[in-house]
């Protein structure tokens, strides 16, 4: 243990209003801590630079899963354990439930929060690819009010986002319109559990009579942030799924990703495995299409 607890101030925010007031009052002074699964690791390594921390674990207003006819809203303070166990998320957004089950261990899932996973900004984060292919909207809140934007516009660069210093992530909103979509999510890690992602691909798509009407592709660890694979989507959208389109999509993917060599893996491996995962997804798309034609 290389951190010294005595050199950090930690207070418990009493409510959302209290949290927002403090954030506004001392801009940039407070570091928010929810589940602690990132910050406490830094603390133990002697690398927690934050002097003043504000705990969100007592702010109940951030912990919710609200279902209505059109969307599901997940509070930023909701844990991945809660996300996994929720019936509507499991039925409507299985990729997110799947991703939630990959966050560390059961013990980590009981603490790690959705907002924490997003705001920590790791390009390897487990939840973002699923959120991206489900067209999630992110709702940010401050004393100045709340704003919603497509989650795809949230991350600006490596550990940089649109989040202002007085804002926190209130909720993610997922539209309930993916029941008929083909879906795919695969994570490649260093082992089957407790693994940081080397590369992950998520996808949702609608295909009718061999033509791809809708496609969303997202990736972890292929750029400096979680990303939608826009060029690859373009190579597939409105196209008939054929050998040519598959080749074009593969080329587009290899051109648009920017993986790196790091402690876990290599750029070349990541890029080629990503292309293989895309191929695997397109196979399932074809099979789904074939099954529907027979039916």
């Amino acid at each position, binding site marked *: *243990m290389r*951190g010294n*607890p*005595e*050199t*950090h*101030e*930690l*207070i*418990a925010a009493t409510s959302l209003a209290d949290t927002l007031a403090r954030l506004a009052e001392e801009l940039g002074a407070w570091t928010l*801590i929810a*589940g*602690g*699964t990132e910050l*406490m*690791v830094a*603390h*133990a*390594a002697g690398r927690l630079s934050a002097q003043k*921390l504000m*705990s969100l*674990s*007592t702010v109940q207003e951030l912990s919710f899963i609200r279902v209505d006819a059109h969307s599901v809203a997940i509070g930023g303070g909701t844990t991945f*354990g809660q996300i996994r166990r929720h019936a509507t998320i499991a039925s409507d957004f299985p990729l997110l439930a799947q991703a939630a*089950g990959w966050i*560390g*261990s*059961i*013990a*980590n899932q*009981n*603490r790690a929060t959705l907002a924490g996973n997003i705001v920590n900004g790791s390009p390897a984060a487990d939840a973002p690819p699923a959120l991206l292919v489900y067209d999630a909207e992110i709702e940010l809140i401050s004393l100045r009010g709340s704003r919603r934007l497509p989650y795809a516009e949230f991350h600006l660069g490596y550990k940089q986002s649109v989040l202002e210093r007085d804002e926190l992530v209130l909720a993610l909103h997922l539209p309930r319109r993916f029941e008929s979509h083909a879906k795919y999510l695969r994570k490649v890690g260093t082992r*089957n*559990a*407790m693994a940081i992602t080397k590369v992950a691909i998520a996808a949702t798509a609608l295909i009718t009579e061999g033509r791809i009407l809708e496609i969303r592709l997202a990736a972890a660890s292929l750029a400096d942030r979680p990303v939608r694979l826009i060029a690859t989507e373009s190579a597939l959208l409105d196209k008939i799924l054929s050998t040519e389109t598959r080749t074009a999509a593969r080329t587009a993917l290899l051109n648009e990703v920017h993986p790196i060599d790091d402690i876990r893996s290599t750029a070349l491996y990541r890029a080629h495995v990503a292309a293989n995962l895309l191929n695997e997804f397109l196979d399932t798309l074809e099979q789904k299409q074939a099954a529907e034609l027979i039916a």
Partner: protein
Amino acid sequence: MSPAWPHIQLIVNGQSAMVETPPMKRLLDVLREDLGLTGTKEGCGEGECGSCSVRMNGELVNSCLVPILQADGARIETVEGLAIDAELHPLQKAFLECGGAQCGICTPGMLMAATHLLAHNPRPSMEEIREGLAGNLCRCTGFIKIFDSVIAAAAMKGAAHDAR
């Protein structure tokens, strides 16, 4: 810098405790140092090995990642609370009979993870056992006899009725 430290109330294995510590002190260290409950171990400090696992308000957590302020008012269960008087918990009996403990350092955390698993899933499949214990590293057993122990405990009468 020495502001007054907060008073943290805990219920540990059914007993009330109050500690006055820096709020960023880890729950793991409060258990071991302030409360003398050294059964919970530190293997990595990063939430990877699970040897610090405890149950907090019924949920399995890595106590090395919980700042004590966030445990204020919480009900904490550690390995020391599993046996009741002289009676071993079914999982403890099973670990003894099936060889689930070798060097023993992962055992407290492993027992807490297994207790948590059986509380939520009294008859887990092998896949569910593997997943339930995936956050607890054991270097000695290769996990095989730990799986055997959990299966044996699940079959023992009383394991499913363990409300805690």
